[in-house]
């Protein structure tokens, strides 16, 4: 018999929900039309796409035409940076200023760093405290005359800390009243969609990135919410799809899947409390059964499915491989597991030493996690930590 798999890496990706898959399937070979075609086959594809747009706009409390489908959140993030920068340039602003935080996803940090290196923009990377939280007042302090974009993630992917987006949004909104060049406030909400309120009116955001595969939907699909009236240039040019702003034949099965995945989130809200209880059970268990550990990140402002520990004096990658051999899947911020051989920039940002980062393990629970899984993981994890500490001689 195949040994059971316990997947605790839901912040990396999630399995496609069977209800989502079912909705997608006809769009591969029955309703396969191109949404730009004006015949009936095109109509069917377009209907599927517009229904998804409607589902997403209901979830975000925005207009359907404010949703643009993309290939994923990396594209959405890249697009908002490149597009807002270029638009400011077009308007004659020589060197626009962009504000973000030091521990954003690389899909935000990289494009900003590239523009900065080319000396096309000025940038501010805000620091975070040891709990992994940004101070809204720091955003306010760093705003300049030439600031065009502020981008702050809603919830951090590694330590699950939840940022004060509503508060930052309100501050920017207030400032914008008196400003001629309005600041666009963007949030990468990829990790937050499953668990937090993503009403864009409530949050006071102008732009928001979404990914399909983090919410039990398919890979290769995402969206950017962009408030009506905000001008942006295209990142991908061609046939003029998506109100002429994002070209390329629409990925209809993916779009339909994204819509259904978002639709299911509202229906499965009560799962969140169950997941949170399981998370707390694992946190308490680790603290009770394993000596010399530390929980990283805020406990209060934290996604209900995120656990992040350092198991001091051993290497996180070793624990990861040990658990993987027992079909338990987790992740680590250790340099040993990175192609760059550097500890996670998120963990360095909250002040962890290299050793603390090397010994870290992230567990991210999901809809499929149950109480037996937690008992089993705790048992295997305790054995692994003991074994590796014996090998390290510590």
């Amino acid at each position, binding site marked *: 018999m195949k040994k059971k798999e316990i997947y605790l890496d839901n912040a990396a990706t999630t399995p496609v929900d069977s209800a989502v898959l079912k909705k997608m399937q006809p769009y591969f070979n029955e309703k396969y039309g191109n949404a730009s075609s004006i015949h009936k086959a095109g109509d069917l594809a377009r209907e599927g796409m517009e229904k998804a747009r409607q589902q997403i706009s209901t979830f975000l409390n925005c207009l359907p035409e404010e949703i643009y489908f993309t290939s994923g959140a990396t594209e959405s993030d890249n697009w908002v940076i490149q597009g807002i920068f270029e638009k400011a340039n077009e308007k004659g602003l020589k060197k626009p200023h962009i504000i973000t935080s030091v521990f954003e996803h690389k899909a935000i940090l990289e494009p900003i760093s590239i523009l900065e290196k080319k000396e096309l923009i000025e940038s501010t990377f805000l620091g975070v405290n040891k709990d992994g939280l940004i101070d809204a007042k720091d955003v306010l302090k760093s705003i300049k005359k030439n600031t065009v974009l502020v981008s702050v993630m809603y919830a951090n992917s590694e330590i699950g800390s939840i940022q004060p987006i509503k508060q930052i949004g309100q501050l920017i909104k207030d400032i914008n009243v008196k400003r001629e060049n309005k600041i666009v406030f963007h949030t990468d909400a990829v990790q937050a969609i499953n668990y937090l309120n993503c009403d864009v009116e409530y949050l006071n955001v102008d732009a928001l990135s979404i990914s399909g595969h983090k919410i039990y939907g398919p890979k290769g699909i995402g969206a950017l919410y962009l408030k009506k009236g905000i001008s942006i240039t295209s990142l991908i040019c061609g046939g003029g799809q998506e109100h002429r702003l994002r070209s390329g034949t629409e990925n209809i099965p993916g779009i339909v899947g994204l819509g259904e995945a978002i639709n299911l989130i509202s229906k499965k809200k009560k799962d969140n409390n169950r997941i949170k209880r399981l998370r707390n059970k694992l946190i308490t268990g680790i603290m009770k059964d394993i000596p010399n550990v530390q929980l990283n990140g805020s406990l209060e402002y934290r996604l209900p499915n995120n656990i992040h520990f350092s198991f001091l004096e051993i290497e996180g990658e070793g624990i990861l491989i040990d658990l993987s051999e027992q079909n338990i899947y987790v992740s680590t911020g250790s340099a*040993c597991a990175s192609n760059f051989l550097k500890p996670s920039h998120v963990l360095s940002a909250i002040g962890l030493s290299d050793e603390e980062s090397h010994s870290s393990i992230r567990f991210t629970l999901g809809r499929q996690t149950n109480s037996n899984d937690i008992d089993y993981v705790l048992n295997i994890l305790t054995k692994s930590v003991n074994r590796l500490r014996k090998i390290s001689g510590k």
Partner: protein
Amino acid sequence: MYSKEVIKHFKNPKNMGFMKDPDGVGEIGNPQCGDVLKLYIKVKDNKIKDIKFETLGCAVAIAVSSVITEMAKNKTIEQALKLTEEDIVERLGGLPLFKMHCSNLAAQALKKAIKNYQK
């Protein structure tokens, strides 16, 4: 990600643990990733009679530690000094590119332990 041989040595490392009264000790830290690898040797009649390791590191660091103890045991000092990174990688059935530096750690630690013995 890793070869069967790497996983085998990681799961059941050979010659693991502290050694009392060793004839030589070699410790190498990896500045790149923070791994620390320590080898202890006992030498008799110019041969490595016993060898043990303690390693704080990733799965590969532990596997290379285990495999080098197997490769060096009962070798003469001259033979042991000739063991290279490439020998270790070959014995482990290959390593992912970004893990190659781990094999170097083991070869260096052995040379350091022998040097320490010769002093």
